[in-house]
């Protein structure tokens, strides 16, 4: 491709040096707390979420060890409850959502829409610090034997003041608050970035599918999280301020908690899966060397999945006994979600069918996705049917089902995406051989670990049991599952070795090693601090493939400030200019103040009232208007965009 392998002209070199001066991220130890560029924050999210993935994965190994033998005493029941709760909580709240949504959205969406930073970069930095503080808090509590132990869902009354003494459920509920704030912040940034900061020409019908996925996920975050905000806050109030929301003895309601939790909890699954599906669309397009077949179908499928996801929360509650008419509605709604997902799958297959296939490691991971995720979708129909669900609900069948859906639908695409974008992140290629080895180890290990769970569930083994009797016929299947874990462990080790090795010694990638069509490949690998030397314009769905021979670039932005171009939501016509804020440590300080308030409120309700004072001070520092940029805006008349 013609993208930038041509040497720079003298004028371009000058321009690059000027941009570098303006966009340079602060360096040094203190600089670490000031950076606001989306690639830096995005990478931090990736590394942090990756660490949580490894930690939660190790906990899975501890569980598999305990369950490899009937009536084993390797873990006490108390330890086992903490381990499975920490595994689920960490995977869902500290790995899956921060990785699939926040990390990928922050790093790639601004690049893919062709702008210089994410909207509200300081809020972005704030969201990262809150996320990492919430995660650290949960894990420090765990190492102090105060680990959450009521399941990742923490149903009342088991997690309430009467049956959950100590501070364990409080740490859990407060960790939710941390991750809520950070996810909501990123959702707002993503939506504004996509709706207002796109490259000229990237009208709605030319937005890359990956970006669509992240926008839809953002809306789901905004509509879904209030449910868990309510449930976890009400739980905390019941525990710390003696409210009685969930106490049946005085008219409280234990089912209310479940409705609120699953109003968020079910869309949560799609918040994790939609970015995964969007990665699959991206990789299928690149590696079948053609435009996605059925772009419109795929985008509308993602949108309708986002809507339908809010209509099926009750299918987590079928066993609570619900009226028959509600049963019928939620069964139908749960099965209907198969229609948009099916439409996407058929579009991917026809795209592959009519394309020229280049079978490299990212595509192998996508094939693993097809095998695994579709099986998870099929077992999803079992749990959507109320009568069948009454047999398999809360058994290992469901454990198998959601690992097929979540590992199949998110982790396989994530590995695919990571292999695919590694050259963009680091400038070097991952080793193809090690990539294949890790793929096959992971794929085979996954099936060995999780397929027998269907069987052991149908044989009657419930979830969340710390042990089981030896005469139930579950022992051998459990041992096979535990053996499979070893392969999964090795697969992740090989993958990490590949990353570490390739980061130093991998082949140089160049700007566009896969000859792909989206805008992140239009700049150097890794991208400079200003993302693009020439801000691009767009002429089709795959911007680089469809570029005209003399595709224009954006000109006329001030190069002595961090200015950027605003475009209109529908047609992405230029609509004005504005400036990104400078790096600053205020978001970090505000996050620390917020962390102190959140953690303080675990121990006393006064934590919120008194803790609000430092938050207010740091926020004032953060938003304190500066004379110079305000003057500049006025003088250049970029304040008003009309």
């Amino acid at each position, binding site marked *: 491709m013609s993208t930038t392998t041509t040497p720079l002209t003298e004028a371009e070199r000058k321009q690059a040096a000027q941009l570098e001066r303006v966009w340079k991220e602060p360096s040094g130890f203190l600089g670490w707390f000031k950076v606001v560029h989306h690639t830096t924050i995005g990478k931090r999210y990736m590394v942090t979420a990756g660490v949580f993935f490894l930690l939660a994965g190790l906990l899975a190994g501890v569980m598999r060890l305990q369950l490899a033998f009937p009536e084993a005493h390797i873990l006490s*029941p108390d330890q086992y*409850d903490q381990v499975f709760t920490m595994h689920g909580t960490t995977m869902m709240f500290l790995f899956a959502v921060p990785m699939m949504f926040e990390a990928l959205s922050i790093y790639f969406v601004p690049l893919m829409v062709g702008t210089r930073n994410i909207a509200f970069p300081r809020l972005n930095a704030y969201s990262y610090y809150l996320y990492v503080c919430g995660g650290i808090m949960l894990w420090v509590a765990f190492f102090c034997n105060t680990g959450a132990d009521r399941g990742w869902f923490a149903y009342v009354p088991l997690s309430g003041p009467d*049956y959950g003494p100590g501070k364990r459920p409080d740490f859990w509920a407060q960790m939710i608050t941390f991750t809520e704030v950070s996810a909501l912040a990123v959702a707002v940034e993503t939506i504004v970035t996509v709706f207002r900061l796109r490259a000229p020409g990237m009208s709605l019908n030319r937005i890359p599918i990956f970006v669509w996925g992240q926008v839809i996920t953002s809306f789901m975050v905004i509509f879904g999280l209030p449910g868990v905000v309510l449930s976890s806050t009400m739980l905390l109030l019941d525990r710390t301020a003696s409210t009685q929301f969930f106490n049946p003895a005085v008219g409280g309601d234990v089912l209310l908690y479940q409705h609120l939790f699953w109003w968020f909890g079910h869309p949560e699954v799609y918040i994790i899966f939609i970015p995964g599906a969007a990665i699959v669309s991206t990789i299928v397009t690149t590696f079948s060397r053609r435009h996605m077949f059925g772009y419109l179908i795929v985008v509308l499928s993602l949108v309708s999945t986002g809507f339908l996801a809010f209509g099926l929360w009750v299918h987590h509650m079928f066993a609570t006994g619900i009226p028959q008419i509600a*049963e019928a509605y939620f069964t139908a709604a749960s099965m209907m979600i198969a229609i948009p997902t099916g*439409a996407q799958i058929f579009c991917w*297959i026809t795209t592959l069918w009519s394309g020229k296939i280049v079978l490299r490691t990212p595509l192998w991971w996508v094939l693993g996705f097809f095998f695994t995720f579709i099986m998870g979708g*099929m077992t999803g129909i079992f749990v959507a049917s109320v009568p*069948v669900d009454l047999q398999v609900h809360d058994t290992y069948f469901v454990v198998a089902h959601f690992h097929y859906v979540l590992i199949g639908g998110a982790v396989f695409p994530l590995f695919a995406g990571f292999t695919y974008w590694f050259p963009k992140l680091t400038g070097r290629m991952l080793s193809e051989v090690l990539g294949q080895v890790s793929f096959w180890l992971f794929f085979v290990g996954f099936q060995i670990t999780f397929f027998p769970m269907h069987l052991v569930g149908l*044989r009657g083994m419930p979830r969340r049991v710390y042990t089981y009797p030896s005469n139930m016929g579950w022992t051998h299947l459990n041992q096979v599952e535990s053996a499979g874990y070893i392969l999964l462990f090795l697969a992740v080790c090989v993958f990490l070795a590949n990353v570490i090795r390739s980061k130093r010694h991998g082949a140089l990638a160049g700007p566009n090693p896969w000859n792909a069509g989206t805008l992140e490949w239009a700049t150097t690998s890794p991208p400079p601090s200003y993302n693009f030397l020439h801000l691009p314009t767009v002429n089709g769905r795959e911007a680089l493939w469809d570029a005209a021979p003399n595709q224009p670039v954006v000109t006329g932005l001030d190069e002595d400030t961090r200015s950027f171009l605003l475009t209109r939501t529908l047609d992405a016509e230029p609509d004005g200019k504005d400036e990104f804020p400078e790096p600053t440590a205020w978001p970090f300080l505000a996050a620390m103040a917020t962390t102190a308030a959140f953690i303080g409120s675990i121990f006393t309700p006064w934590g919120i009232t008194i803790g609000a004072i430092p938050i207010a001070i740091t926020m004032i520092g953060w938003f304190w208007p500066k004379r110079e940029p305000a003057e500049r805006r006025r003088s250049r008349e970029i304040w008003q965009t009309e």
Partner: protein
Amino acid sequence: MNLLAAVPGFTGNQTALSPVGPGAAHIEHTFSLIFWITSTVWLLVLTAVVIAVYRRRYTLEQMPPPERTTEASDRFAARAVGVSMGITVLLLFIMLISSFRTGHAIGTMNSEPQPLTIDVYGHQWWWEVRYPNPVPANIVETANEIHVPVGVPVHIHGTSRDVIHSFWAPNIQGKRDLMPGYDTDLMLQVDQPGYWRGQCAEFCGLQHAHMAFYIIAQPKDEFEHWLTAQAQSAPVPSDAQTQHGQQVFLTHGCVLCHTIGGTTAASRVGPDLTHLASRSTIAAGTLPNTTGNLAGWILNAQSIKPGARMPPNQLFGTDLQDLLAYLETLK
């Protein structure tokens, strides 16, 4: 339709796929239908994926330039996607209707105007079982073992005394949650005499793993006989050893939590022990009811079921032996 049940791996007394009652049997039909449809679809889709990938495979080092596609060149693809979607929707409706029919069949299982009612209360971590009767003296209280007559619909009325539990005996019927503040009603029918195991299916704390129960299906006359016997008070101890044993029971911690009908022990915190010796397991299906197990359980239940509400008891010399001898008379 019952091909799955024939698979030997799925026989047993706690499996959903070898039903012994109409509830589980209805569900098993829908399960099989969904199984066959989804397995076939999965195989077809995966075959399509494999063919799609192997049809025009390039093993080039360089990525070839992207292909131009037009509406005309994609006409075949559009048709394929359209047909596949049509089939998907059709199959979904078949499974949906089957699911509705099963749900309806289970909902209308009760054929009798006044079926036998059994109250089941979930506790951390055992099951309180009660056979209500208008005559208070004839109320039967037991724990962890539910006797039912064969071939007759039985109405289970349940709730929880503490946290949420889930009542599940997979050979007989799907599960239902028992929730504090809510009443749960479900119908059971067992068509085959035997011991059918069930287990709590909703995470309920430390000993969620050791919260099993048995549904014991008996012919009607045997069941009536059992029920009459259970309504009796405990026998008065006849020899010196068992008399001493009863005194041990009534003067130690036991009496603070347990009931033995016909004595002054009448606390309802733990299981009713009036007919303890007639039960086949102790500690909610955790151990067979033998003298040795009972002794271990009384002395230190925490070593068997850590976290259980039963405290350790220090009993010396003949006290334990006599207590055990007394408990074994509680047939």
